[in-house]
Protein backbone atom coordinates (compact mmCIF):
# COMPACT_ATOMS: atom_id res chain seq x y z
CA UNK A 1 0.00 0.00 0.00
CA UNK A 2 1.72 3.13 -1.11
CA UNK A 3 0.74 6.52 0.15
CA UNK A 4 2.54 8.23 -2.66
CA UNK A 5 -0.69 8.46 -4.62
CA UNK A 6 -2.25 10.35 -1.73
CA UNK A 7 0.76 12.55 -1.24
CA UNK A 8 0.78 13.45 -4.89
CA UNK A 9 -2.73 14.83 -4.55
CA UNK A 10 -1.25 17.45 -2.28
CA UNK A 11 1.28 18.46 -4.90
CA UNK A 12 0.10 21.56 -6.74
CA UNK A 13 1.68 20.82 -10.12
CA UNK A 14 0.36 17.28 -10.05
CA UNK A 15 -3.14 18.40 -9.15
CA UNK A 16 -3.06 21.15 -11.72
CA UNK A 17 -2.29 18.72 -14.51
CA UNK A 18 -4.60 16.03 -13.17
CA UNK A 19 -7.52 18.44 -12.87
CA UNK A 20 -7.11 19.50 -16.47
CA UNK A 21 -7.06 15.88 -17.62
CA UNK A 22 -9.99 14.77 -15.52
CA UNK A 23 -12.39 17.60 -16.28
CA UNK A 24 -13.84 16.19 -19.52
CA UNK A 25 -14.26 12.80 -17.84
CA UNK A 26 -16.71 14.43 -15.46
CA UNK A 27 -18.16 17.06 -17.73
CA UNK A 28 -19.40 14.87 -20.55
CA UNK A 29 -20.98 12.14 -18.44
CA UNK A 30 -22.59 14.90 -16.38
CA UNK A 31 -24.14 16.42 -19.49
CA UNK A 32 -25.38 13.04 -20.68
CA UNK A 33 -26.87 12.09 -17.33
CA UNK A 34 -28.59 15.45 -16.96
CA UNK A 35 -30.03 15.24 -20.45
CA UNK A 36 -31.23 11.71 -19.78
CA UNK A 37 -32.71 12.83 -16.49
CA UNK A 38 -34.47 15.72 -18.20
CA UNK A 39 -35.91 13.46 -20.82
CA UNK A 40 -37.06 10.95 -18.24
CA UNK A 41 -38.40 13.56 -15.87
CA UNK A 42 -40.11 15.90 -18.27
CA UNK A 43 -41.32 13.50 -20.90
CA UNK A 44 -41.36 9.89 -19.77
CA UNK A 45 -42.44 10.14 -16.15
CA UNK A 46 -46.21 10.09 -15.63
CA UNK A 47 -47.87 13.01 -13.88
CA UNK A 48 -48.32 12.75 -10.13
CA UNK A 49 -51.86 11.90 -9.11
CA UNK A 50 -51.86 14.66 -6.51
CA UNK A 51 -49.66 17.37 -7.94
CA UNK A 52 -50.14 16.77 -11.63
CA UNK A 53 -47.40 18.06 -13.85
CA UNK A 54 -46.26 20.45 -11.14
CA UNK A 55 -44.30 17.75 -9.38
CA UNK A 56 -41.75 17.82 -12.20
CA UNK A 57 -40.06 20.69 -10.41
CA UNK A 58 -38.57 18.03 -8.17
CA UNK A 59 -36.17 17.18 -10.95
CA UNK A 60 -34.43 20.52 -10.51
CA UNK A 61 -35.28 21.30 -6.90
CA UNK A 62 -33.99 18.08 -5.36
CA UNK A 63 -30.62 18.21 -7.17
CA UNK A 64 -30.18 21.84 -6.12
CA UNK A 65 -30.90 20.98 -2.50
CA UNK A 66 -28.60 17.99 -2.69
CA UNK A 67 -25.85 20.10 -4.20
CA UNK A 68 -26.12 22.76 -1.51
CA UNK A 69 -25.57 20.22 1.26
CA UNK A 70 -23.03 18.04 -0.49
CA UNK A 71 -20.88 20.95 -1.58
CA UNK A 72 -20.88 22.45 1.91
CA UNK A 73 -19.78 19.15 3.37
CA UNK A 74 -17.03 18.83 0.76
CA UNK A 75 -15.96 22.37 1.52
CA UNK A 76 -15.83 21.76 5.25
CA UNK A 77 -13.94 18.48 4.97
CA UNK A 78 -11.32 19.85 2.61
CA UNK A 79 -11.01 22.98 4.75
CA UNK A 80 -10.46 20.82 7.82
CA UNK A 81 -7.82 18.78 5.99
CA UNK A 82 -6.10 21.95 4.90
CA UNK A 83 -6.19 23.32 8.42
CA UNK A 84 -4.95 20.22 10.21
CA UNK A 85 -2.34 19.03 7.73
CA UNK A 86 -1.54 22.44 6.26
CA UNK A 87 -2.13 21.32 2.68
CA UNK A 88 -2.60 24.22 0.30
CA UNK A 89 -4.40 22.12 -2.29
CA UNK A 90 -7.07 21.25 0.27
CA UNK A 91 -7.64 24.95 0.93
CA UNK A 92 -7.84 25.51 -2.81
CA UNK A 93 -10.58 22.85 -3.02
CA UNK A 94 -12.54 24.54 -0.24
CA UNK A 95 -12.26 27.93 -1.91
CA UNK A 96 -13.46 26.44 -5.19
CA UNK A 97 -16.51 24.88 -3.58
CA UNK A 98 -18.05 27.98 -2.08
CA UNK A 99 -19.42 29.82 -5.12
CA UNK A 100 -20.74 26.59 -6.58
CA UNK A 101 -22.56 25.66 -3.39
CA UNK A 102 -23.93 29.15 -2.83
CA UNK A 103 -25.36 29.41 -6.34
CA UNK A 104 -27.11 26.05 -6.10
CA UNK A 105 -28.48 26.90 -2.67
CA UNK A 106 -29.98 29.96 -4.26
CA UNK A 107 -31.42 27.83 -7.06
CA UNK A 108 -32.85 25.48 -4.46
CA UNK A 109 -34.59 28.35 -2.71
CA UNK A 110 -36.05 29.76 -5.91
CA UNK A 111 -37.25 26.39 -7.19
CA UNK A 112 -38.62 25.65 -3.74
CA UNK A 113 -40.61 28.85 -3.82
CA UNK A 114 -41.85 28.14 -7.33
CA UNK A 115 -42.94 24.72 -6.19
CA UNK A 116 -44.58 26.15 -3.12
CA UNK A 117 -46.91 28.55 -4.85
CA UNK A 118 -49.00 25.99 -6.74
CA UNK A 119 -48.74 23.41 -3.96
CA UNK A 120 -49.28 25.45 -0.81
CA UNK A 121 -50.71 28.61 -2.28
CA UNK A 122 -47.79 30.71 -1.16
CA UNK A 123 -44.31 31.36 -2.50
CA UNK A 124 -42.70 31.09 0.84
CA UNK A 125 -43.28 28.87 3.82
CA UNK A 126 -41.12 28.76 6.88
CA UNK A 127 -40.96 25.01 6.75
CA UNK A 128 -37.84 23.29 8.07
CA UNK A 129 -36.36 22.46 4.70
CA UNK A 130 -36.65 25.86 3.09
CA UNK A 131 -35.64 27.63 6.29
CA UNK A 132 -32.57 25.42 6.67
CA UNK A 133 -31.69 26.09 3.03
CA UNK A 134 -31.93 29.81 3.63
CA UNK A 135 -29.65 29.58 6.64
CA UNK A 136 -27.22 27.49 4.62
CA UNK A 137 -27.11 30.26 2.03
CA UNK A 138 -26.08 32.68 4.76
CA UNK A 139 -23.40 30.28 5.94
CA UNK A 140 -22.00 30.25 2.42
CA UNK A 141 -22.19 34.03 2.14
CA UNK A 142 -20.46 34.40 5.50
CA UNK A 143 -17.70 32.07 4.38
CA UNK A 144 -17.22 33.94 1.12
CA UNK A 145 -17.43 37.28 2.90
CA UNK A 146 -14.74 36.31 5.37
CA UNK A 147 -12.46 35.14 2.58
CA UNK A 148 -12.97 38.34 0.68
CA UNK A 149 -12.30 40.49 3.73
CA UNK A 150 -8.88 38.99 4.45
CA UNK A 151 -6.27 40.00 1.97
CA UNK A 152 -3.55 37.51 2.71
CA UNK A 153 -4.54 34.28 0.97
CA UNK A 154 -3.00 31.97 3.52
CA UNK A 155 -4.66 33.76 6.41
CA UNK A 156 -7.95 33.81 4.52
CA UNK A 157 -7.63 30.08 3.87
CA UNK A 158 -7.05 29.25 7.51
CA UNK A 159 -9.62 31.62 8.98
CA UNK A 160 -12.34 30.52 6.60
CA UNK A 161 -11.41 26.91 7.34
CA UNK A 162 -12.13 27.47 11.02
CA UNK A 163 -15.42 29.04 10.03
CA UNK A 164 -16.31 26.14 7.73
CA UNK A 165 -15.62 23.59 10.46
CA UNK A 166 -17.62 25.56 13.03
CA UNK A 167 -20.39 25.87 10.44
CA UNK A 168 -20.56 22.20 9.60
CA UNK A 169 -20.80 21.30 13.28
CA UNK A 170 -23.68 23.73 13.56
CA UNK A 171 -25.63 22.57 10.50
CA UNK A 172 -27.21 19.55 12.20
CA UNK A 173 -27.94 21.64 15.29
CA UNK A 174 -29.54 24.36 13.23
CA UNK A 175 -31.55 21.85 11.24
CA UNK A 176 -32.74 20.14 14.40
CA UNK A 177 -33.76 23.38 16.07
CA UNK A 178 -35.55 24.62 12.96
CA UNK A 179 -37.45 21.33 12.64
CA UNK A 180 -38.33 21.47 16.34
CA UNK A 181 -39.48 25.07 16.00
CA UNK A 182 -41.55 24.28 12.99
CA UNK A 183 -43.28 21.36 14.65
CA UNK A 184 -44.50 23.64 17.44
CA UNK A 185 -46.33 25.99 15.19
CA UNK A 186 -49.20 24.42 13.34
CA UNK A 187 -47.01 23.33 10.47
CA UNK A 188 -48.91 23.38 7.18
CA UNK A 189 -48.84 20.28 5.04
CA UNK A 190 -45.15 19.74 4.70
CA UNK A 191 -44.05 19.44 1.13
CA UNK A 192 -43.32 15.84 0.56
CA UNK A 193 -40.47 15.80 -1.80
CA UNK A 194 -40.50 12.16 -2.61
CA UNK A 195 -43.30 9.76 -1.94
CA UNK A 196 -41.89 6.83 -0.03
CA UNK A 197 -42.71 4.48 -2.84
CA UNK A 198 -42.00 6.49 -5.93
CA UNK A 199 -42.53 4.38 -9.02
CA UNK A 200 -39.34 3.70 -11.00
CA UNK A 201 -40.51 5.85 -13.90
CA UNK A 202 -40.47 8.80 -11.53
CA UNK A 203 -37.51 7.78 -9.41
CA UNK A 204 -35.01 6.89 -12.10
CA UNK A 205 -34.86 10.35 -13.72
CA UNK A 206 -34.40 11.80 -10.23
CA UNK A 207 -31.44 9.57 -9.55
CA UNK A 208 -29.99 10.40 -12.96
CA UNK A 209 -30.29 14.11 -12.21
CA UNK A 210 -28.73 13.73 -8.78
CA UNK A 211 -25.79 11.81 -10.19
CA UNK A 212 -25.48 14.12 -13.17
CA UNK A 213 -25.37 17.22 -11.00
CA UNK A 214 -22.81 15.61 -8.73
CA UNK A 215 -20.54 14.94 -11.68
CA UNK A 216 -21.18 18.48 -12.89
CA UNK A 217 -20.01 19.76 -9.52
CA UNK A 218 -16.84 17.72 -9.85
CA UNK A 219 -16.17 19.14 -13.31
CA UNK A 220 -16.70 22.75 -12.26
CA UNK A 221 -14.67 22.17 -9.11
CA UNK A 222 -11.75 20.88 -11.15
CA UNK A 223 -11.79 23.96 -13.37
CA UNK A 224 -11.90 26.32 -10.40
CA UNK A 225 -9.31 24.28 -8.56
CA UNK A 226 -6.71 24.91 -11.23
CA UNK A 227 -7.15 28.65 -10.87
CA UNK A 228 -7.05 28.48 -7.08
CA UNK A 229 -3.91 26.38 -7.16
CA UNK A 230 -2.25 28.88 -9.48
CA UNK A 231 -3.18 31.71 -7.14
CA UNK A 232 -1.47 29.97 -4.25
CA UNK A 233 1.71 29.15 -6.08
CA UNK A 234 3.46 32.45 -6.36
CA UNK A 235 7.04 31.62 -7.20
CA UNK A 236 7.02 27.97 -8.11
CA UNK A 237 8.97 27.09 -11.22
CA UNK A 238 6.46 24.62 -12.53
CA UNK A 239 4.08 27.43 -13.29
CA UNK A 240 6.20 28.78 -16.09
CA UNK A 241 5.78 25.62 -18.04
CA UNK A 242 2.18 24.99 -17.13
CA UNK A 243 1.06 28.46 -18.01
CA UNK A 244 2.80 28.81 -21.31
CA UNK A 245 0.92 25.93 -22.93
Amino acid at each position, binding site marked *: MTWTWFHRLGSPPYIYALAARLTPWFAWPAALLILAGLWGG*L*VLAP*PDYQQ*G*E*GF*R*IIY*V*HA*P*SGWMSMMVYTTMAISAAIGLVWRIKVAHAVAASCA*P*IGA*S*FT*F*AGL*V*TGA*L*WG*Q*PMWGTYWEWDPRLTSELILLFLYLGYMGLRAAIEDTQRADRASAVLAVVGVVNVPIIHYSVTWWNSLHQAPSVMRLARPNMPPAMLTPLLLMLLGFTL*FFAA*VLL*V*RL*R*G*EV*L*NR*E*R*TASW*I*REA*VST
Partner: protein
Amino acid sequence: MSDFLAMGGYAAFVWPAYAVTFAVVALNVVWARRALARALAEARRRLATRGEQS
Protein backbone atom coordinates in the same frame (compact mmCIF):
# COMPACT_ATOMS: atom_id res chain seq x y z
CA MET B 1 -46.32 19.70 -27.93
CA SER B 2 -48.44 22.53 -26.57
CA ASP B 3 -49.68 20.12 -23.91
CA PHE B 4 -46.10 19.53 -22.94
CA LEU B 5 -45.36 23.24 -22.74
CA ALA B 6 -48.51 23.88 -20.74
CA MET B 7 -47.41 21.38 -18.09
CA GLY B 8 -50.99 20.72 -17.04
CA GLY B 9 -51.46 24.35 -16.13
CA TYR B 10 -48.35 24.57 -14.02
CA ALA B 11 -46.24 26.01 -16.79
CA ALA B 12 -45.75 29.33 -15.01
CA PHE B 13 -43.98 27.49 -12.22
CA VAL B 14 -42.29 24.55 -13.85
CA TRP B 15 -40.53 26.35 -16.67
CA PRO B 16 -39.13 29.22 -14.60
CA ALA B 17 -37.87 26.64 -12.12
CA TYR B 18 -35.99 24.82 -14.85
CA ALA B 19 -34.82 28.11 -16.31
CA VAL B 20 -33.38 29.31 -13.02
CA THR B 21 -31.65 26.02 -12.35
CA PHE B 22 -30.03 25.85 -15.75
CA ALA B 23 -29.14 29.49 -15.58
CA VAL B 24 -27.23 28.63 -12.42
CA VAL B 25 -25.62 25.71 -14.22
CA ALA B 26 -24.54 27.96 -17.08
CA LEU B 27 -23.39 30.62 -14.64
CA ASN B 28 -21.18 28.13 -12.89
CA VAL B 29 -19.54 27.09 -16.14
CA VAL B 30 -18.89 30.67 -17.24
CA TRP B 31 -17.80 31.78 -13.79
CA ALA B 32 -15.37 28.90 -13.36
CA ARG B 33 -13.76 29.38 -16.73
CA ARG B 34 -13.41 33.09 -16.13
CA ALA B 35 -11.83 32.46 -12.75
CA LEU B 36 -9.31 30.13 -14.33
CA ALA B 37 -8.57 32.59 -17.12
CA ARG B 38 -8.00 35.33 -14.56
CA ALA B 39 -5.68 33.15 -12.54
CA LEU B 40 -3.70 32.26 -15.68
CA ALA B 41 -3.42 35.91 -16.67
CA GLU B 42 -2.26 36.77 -13.14
CA ALA B 43 0.32 34.02 -13.19
CA ARG B 44 1.64 35.10 -16.58
CA ARG B 45 1.84 38.69 -15.42
CA ARG B 46 3.71 37.68 -12.29
CA LEU B 47 6.16 35.59 -14.28
CA ALA B 48 6.68 38.38 -16.79
CA THR B 49 7.50 40.99 -14.14
CA ARG B 50 9.79 38.62 -12.32
CA GLY B 51 11.51 37.80 -15.57
CA GLU B 52 12.24 41.49 -16.12
CA GLN B 53 13.67 41.82 -12.66
CA SER B 54 16.03 38.84 -12.88
